[in-house]
């Protein structure tokens, strides 16, 4: 295998942090190479330099033996390097072909472009109609627009940043088929992910980054996921374990709930039913934007629903607001940490008062006891190993993972009877994520019922007793999580769009 891209000693410093420190690795022609690392390990900075969005402070790159120092993404594309970003940059009101044309320096005539989009999409098993409006496409289809936009440039190196985070398992399979076909044609792929099983299935080589430095290379086909994870984290990984597992009485019952959110871009919940027993963890999967936020809001009490829709312990709680529900033991931790679960500019002490005044009795006659509140904030910080100078720090000064630990800890330490969490470990590093999952499992073992909404299927399989999926506002009937196959989960999540067409 000849060498396509060689990166030598790349260093990039930002004020106060060295994002990349002497990073070297190489990708062979037709190789699928994984870039592994936790959030903040420097993966993004590295690919931004390769794609010409950032310039290295030191070090150099070679592409096919020649010097390669792209001044901007246009130069990178001209040299045959293309990138699919994690966040799409598409105009919803335009159709597929128009969106593709916008990204080109010299777009051909619309009709020719549409024809070549059709051709590429058929060649690579990525069904896509160039005339469809992007606003009507699913996340997976939008990603195809981005991929086809890249493929039209006939790239030598395709960079993919966390491509599977928005896909159902079936869509992931389609994507992998495409990538393997590209590989067989000699295109190299730099694949960024933290999903280790995917990397084992797809990649030929892997470079592992930690804190901006290369900490190792490995062949993912022969290295275990656990070994790779430990290289990423730099320590032995603790796998959450579950004690007991006996579930008790029915705590929460949702029956035929219909809910239209006030936000016009929200997802309507349709005929959602679920039961939750004491000690049970109900995992709810699904691609983002299928009603997760709305489900949390009707359970937390932020949104009120019709009579009898939400029953707690045999009593109708549909009309109760968030604080009335906290009083009886229903707590929630929303997905959006800054601005929903916590107020960015307020101190951790004040953020502790945000949800805990009732159950922790932090106020008397409506006067807050700040001393007691600060003690509680300290307790959360200590118990959940939140890295921060102290409870006086503003929430926004914490890293995402640390703030997430604080938010989850704040609810768990209130000993809820029911805890509803959305994306409990999103953007959290592996060891902190393991701690959070363990805390959730311990809470369930103490007899609480948990609803865990997440897009991380591995996480859900690890901690759930029952699994259900949200798909366009409807919830599938929960099934025992044990023994569910990936295919079954995929079908519950609504399957892949245009599956039949994809099978060439």
């Amino acid at each position, binding site marked *: 295998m000849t060498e396509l891209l060689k990166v030598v000693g790349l260093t990039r410093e930002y004020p106060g942090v060295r994002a990349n420190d002497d990073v070297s690795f190489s990708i062979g022609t037709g190789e699928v190479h994984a870039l592994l690392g936790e959030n903040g390990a420097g993966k993004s900075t590295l690919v931004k330099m390769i794609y010409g969005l950032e310039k290295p402070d030191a070090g150099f790159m070679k592409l096919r033996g020649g010097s390669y120092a792209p001044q901007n993404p246009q130069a990178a594309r001209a040299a045959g390097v293309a990138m699919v970003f994690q966040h799409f940059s598409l105009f919803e009101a335009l159709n597929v072909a128009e969106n593709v044309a916008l990204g080109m320096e010299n777009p051909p005539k619309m009709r020719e472009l549409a024809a070549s989009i059709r051709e590429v999409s058929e060649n690579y098993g990525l069904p896509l109609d160039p005339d469809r409006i992007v606003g009507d496409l699913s996340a997976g289809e939008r990603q195809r627009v981005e991929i086809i936009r890249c493929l039209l440039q006939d790239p030598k190196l395709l960079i993919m940043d966390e491509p599977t985070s928005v896909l159902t398992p079936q869509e992931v399979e389609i994507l992998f088929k495409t990538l393997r076909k590209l590989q067989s044609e000699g295109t190299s792929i730099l694949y960024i992910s933290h999903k280790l099983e995917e990397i084992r299935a797809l990649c030929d080589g892997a470079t592992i980054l930690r804190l901006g430095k290369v900490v190792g290379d490995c062949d993912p086909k022969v290295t275990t996921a656990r070994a790779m994870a430990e290289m990423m984290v730099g320590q032995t990984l603790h796998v959450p374990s579950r004690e007991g597992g006996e579930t008790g009485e029915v705590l929460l019952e949702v029956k035929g709930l219909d809910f239209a959110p006030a936000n016009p871009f929200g997802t309507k919940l349709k005929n959602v039913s679920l039961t939750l027993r004491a000690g049970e963890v109900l995992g709810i999967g699904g691609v983002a934007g299928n009603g997760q936020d709305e489900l949390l809001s009707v359970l937390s009490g932020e949104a009120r629903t019709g009579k009898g829709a939400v029953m707690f312990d045999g009593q109708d709680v549909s009309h109760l607001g*968030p604080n009335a529900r906290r009083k009886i033991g229903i707590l929630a931790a929303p997905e959006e940490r800054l601005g929903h679960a916590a107020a960015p*500019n307020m101190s951790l002490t*004040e953020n502790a008062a945000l*949800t805990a005044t009732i159950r922790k009795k932090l106020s008397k006659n409506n*006067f807050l006891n700040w001393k007691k509140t600060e003690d509680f904030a300290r307790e959360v910080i200590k118990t959940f190993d939140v890295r921060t100078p102290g409870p006086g720090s*503003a929430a926004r000064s914490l890293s995402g993972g640390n703030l997430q630990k604080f938010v989850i800890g704040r609810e768990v330490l209130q000993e809820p009877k029911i805890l509803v969490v959305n994306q409990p470990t999103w953007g959290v590093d592996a060891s902190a994520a393991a701690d959070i999952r363990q805390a959730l499992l311990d809470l369930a073992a103490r007899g609480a019922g948990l609803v865990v909404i997440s897009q991380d299927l591995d996480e859900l399989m690890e901690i759930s007793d029952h699994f259900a999926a949200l798909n366009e506002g409807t919830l599938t009937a929960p099934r025992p999580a044990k023994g569910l196959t990936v295919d079954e989960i995929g079908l519950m999540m609504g399957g892949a769009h245009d599956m039949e067409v994809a099978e060439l």
Partner: protein
Amino acid sequence: MITFVKRPEPSKAWTIATPILAVILTMILGGLLFAAMGKDPVAAIRTIFWDPLFNEQFAAYSRPQLLVKAGPLILIAIGLSLGFKAGIWNIGAEGQYIIGAITGASVGLALYPLDAWWIFPLMVIAGALGGFLWAMIPALLKTKFNTNEILVSLMLVYVAEQILASAALGFLRNPEGNGFPGSRNLSQIPAMSNPELITGTGAHWGVVAAFASVVAAYVLINKHMLGFQIRLTGESPRAARFAGVKDKLLVVFCLGAAGALAGLAGLFEVTGPAGQISIDFGAGYGFTAIIVAFLGRLNPIGILLAGLLLALTFIGGELAQFMLGLPSAAIQVFQGMLLMILLAMDILVNYRVMILKKEAS
């Protein structure tokens, strides 16, 4: 190249330092403005900031004026600050101030010439209630129909001014006033007057109420659940709803409290320093109080100091008009500069200034 880098958390030191720096910068730029107008800048700045308090010739008159002017400013600004903290923008305090004066004066004059100790307290209640009800118009329109409280409260100022004119010329006109517009002079009716409590200080009941409101607001904001909810709503409305804040009730409370305090200020003014309902009763306190609230960083103690400072520029400004012949527009520009500079310097609280070497490209 100068860039601003966001601080991880707001700087406490800059929170205190920016108002002081803003005042100094305003003095410098204002001095330049006065110099451009051909006046001696040092003399002008001294006349505005120093002479009202310490000049032997004027201080005896102007020093009590400080509290007379600062009292209503502080009282109104405290009320406004509650709403501003929560992101509820009541721009119509001037109208609430006028209506408070009219309702309070009307209650008193309706009882004329009765003389009883309870008349003045009753007028105080009526004044507060008048301002409260006037503020309920934007509050209810906002909560019921989602109208913009900025527009509604502001427009109601002009309505209030028309009612004021009609009161001065019509239903409250002094029957013994020989046809001149304006009501009876309330400050000369013992049962209705709001006298200077300590001779030579200018302190009347309105000043007492202003100081009491500072203390009450301080406790509310820092210790009480409601104050916490107000701050939370301003910081992050979604987090506030998650914390169980009833946002509509909060709108009603914030507008209502601001209206009641503005109404009180109007009542104390009409029974004291102004003396009567007249066409030109609305002197702009309700608008200047917006500046006071921001200059004081929406903090009760800050508002107390800012109210005194603004009152000083009022008195000093008048003195400068009279002594140096500065046009009143120049004084207003000067006061406007103070707010603009303060808001502009706000960026230093949340951002650090960094000077970057230009990258070779």
